[in-house]
């Protein structure tokens, strides 16, 4: 069955081809998600995050190891992270009544003002597997009984070898970035990032003008497999827009009908774009050649996501690190992560109403340019490991 060709249009039949994706309004459960940046969690510090409805407290013990436990005290349900307290190594104490949890296994080790209480060592909070990599803290979030989590690498973009752009698993990798809580469903963010048709949003952006960059108005897919399905056994699953292959995509630089032309004269190495489960964008050679920009769209609930914007480079010496830090603060961040990406955010927020309140997932009119968005939906539908559900008792 020719899935891709028939996937353009507007019908329930089309949505059926990626039905699990349509259901994933709270995100796909049982995946690794970034919780925060490494430098946000000091030794004996506590950071609270919400991923797919799970409130999680991330802490760092005196050996520098990070731990993730449920960010809800058993006693009366306040968030542990609301007022971080770590009195003893590898513990988190609730600031309200002193319930003190073991950071490694969640056990209630003591209660500060009631050390003989019978509850001690009989109850505990849930823990989440966590790992730190390349300046980010990742947490495996999902069903309590899921079993051994798959490796973190299965939920990271693959390490490309043909262009060898910076990757989290590289030695000498340096990353910097920001995260912000945004209004809008995580899928709208992921699709916007991948979408070859949305370049018009960036037509007048500062970074494009400043670099005199020849940014196309659109990318026309020339072949059915212009978007590659990547399915690595036990590894990353995603789709990749092969903008780098001229036989796959034809950039559109002008449309005389509306008298518009792409600005800029500098032709760069194409910024190849790929999207990975559970919701990660990898843009190679962006904002400039030799740099990789990663974006994580981490579901918080069905109407909010945490937007991680990460710039990755390699640096072998302190001087190179300093240079990267300087460029990050004065170029990548203000022009790329803020100015340029703010236009993407504006677009996602504008689509939220249609998709969430008017059932846009079953009610949209896609065109040829949405080819890779549909490919992503299928890949996500096929490889999502489960669904997050609303934890709220009075709404959904």
């Amino acid at each position: 069955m020719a899935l891709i060709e028939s996937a353009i249009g507007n019908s329930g039949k089309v949505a059926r081809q990626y039905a699990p994706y349509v259901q994933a309004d709270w995100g796909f459960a049982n995946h690794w998600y970034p919780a925060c940046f490494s430098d946000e969690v000091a030794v004996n510090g506590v950071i609270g995050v919400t991923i797919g409805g799970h409130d999680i407290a991330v802490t760092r013990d005196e050996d520098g190891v990070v731990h993730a436990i449920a960010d809800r005290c058993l006693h009366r349900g306040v968030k542990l992270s609301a007022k971080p307290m770590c009195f003893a190594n590898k513990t988190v104490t609730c600031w309200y009544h002193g319930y003190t949890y073991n950071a490694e296994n969640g056990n209630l080790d003591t209660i500060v003002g009631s050390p003989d209480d019978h509850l001690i060592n009989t109850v505990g909070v849930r823990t989440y597997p966590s790992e730190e990599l390349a300046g980010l803290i990742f947490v495996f979030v999902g069903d309590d009984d899921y079993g051994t989590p798959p490796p973190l690498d299965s939920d990271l973009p693959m390490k490309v070898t043909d262009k060898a752009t910076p990757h989290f698993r590289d030695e000498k990798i340096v990353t910097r970035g920001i995260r912000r809580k945004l209004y809008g469903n995580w899928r709208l963010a992921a699709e916007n990032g991948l979408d070859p048709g949305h370049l018009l949003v960036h037509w007048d952006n500062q970074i494009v003008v400043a670099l005199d960059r020849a940014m196309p108005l659109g990318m026309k897919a020339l072949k059915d497999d212009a978007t590659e399905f990547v399915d690595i056994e036990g590894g990353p699953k995603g789709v990749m827009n092969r903008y780098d292959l001229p036989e796959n995509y034809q950039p559109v630089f002008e449309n005389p009908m509306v008298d518009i032309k792409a600005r800029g004269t500098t032709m760069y190495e194409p910024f190849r774009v790929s999207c990975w489960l559970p919701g990660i964008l990898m843009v190679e050679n962006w904002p400039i050649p030799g740099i990789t920009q990663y974006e994580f769209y981490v579901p918080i609930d069905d109407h909010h996501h945490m937007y991680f914007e990460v710039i990755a480079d390699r640096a072998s010496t302190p001087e190179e690190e300093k240079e990267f830090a300087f460029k990050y603060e004065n170029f990548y961040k203000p022009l790329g992560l803020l100015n340029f990406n703010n236009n993407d955010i504006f677009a996602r927020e504008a689509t939220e109403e249609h998709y969430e309140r008017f059932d846009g997932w079953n009610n949209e009119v896609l065109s040829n340019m949405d080819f890779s968005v549909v490919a992503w939906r299928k890949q996500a539908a096929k490889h999502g490991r489960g669904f997050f559900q609303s934890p709220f008792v009075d709404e959904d």
Partner: protein
Amino acid sequence: MTIVEGTEMTVPQTASRHIALRFTDGQVREFDADPGETLLAAARRAGHRLVSQCTVGTCGTCVGTLVDGAGEMPSDRISTLSADELAAGQRLLCQTRALCDSSFDLDYPATLLEAHPPVGFRARITRLTWVADTVVELELKVPKAIKFGFTAGQYCRIQVPGTDEWRSYSIASGEHERFRLTFLIRILPSGVMSDFLRDAARTGQSLEVEGPLGGFVLEPAPRPTVLIAGGTGLAPMLSMLDRLRTVQPTPPILLLFGCNRPAELFHEDELAARISLMPTLEVRTVLMDNAGRDDLPAGTPLSVLRADDVAPDTVSYLCGPPPMIRAAEEQLGALGLPAHDIRAEQFVPSEN
């Protein structure tokens, strides 16, 4: 202070105690408890779920009233029960150990223990699609205020508007979609629900619904699974496939689906989509009369069941007309499946 209610008696120290719990709806659950075991733990061990929360004696949710026998709570810690309440026989079952055969009253109905107690509600028709000459796919929106949940395989009763007639249909949508239920309904030449759906049903209209009902439920496990569906018997299978998709590791799944003739065949695209999403799913579609569709074999779903489709640990779910169920049970049994691994829901045609 040790609290022992009941008459003086010689308490055996080793024998297990027979416990009876009586619910407000008159249902009684009986099980044995070991001497040192709390009644909540003993009930759980016996497979009875009871209302409880903290399990450590502080929330008071699992309170029951001793009506016969003797039950002791630890004396060395503070209880949420007052001396008066204890004297009146109240006990926290998560803390109580029985000293002899005992019975307790609980202040809630046994149905509360079911994973998804049935509820009644009005649901709006959000979609009504003819997917074949004789099959309608009905989508209903459950109001968000309704606490509705179900296990794949269960069904709902739907009232035909303007009548006292109710009809039962398996839920075809997945457990995850709690607020949007779909049903696959066979339209008969005449019949109250068929007439209503054919002639009167409109999007936006509201229907009385009751559910979820039924014990034909999927037990998600990574076991090879054979699903056999006749006609709209496909409905619970679709719901089950939705759930099986997230079972780790995903088991091999075989779906055998049969319809009468090409004009009555439906959801070919749906099944093709499922195959593309589920690498371990195999579907064999058959038609009783395949004239015009010679790409599909002629026969019943069972005619395409092969001996090597069934492994020793296979579990099977059947849904369709009674003759198909009977034949399938026979055939699967002959292939070595024990009766408890052959689970069936059969269509019972209505009188009108």
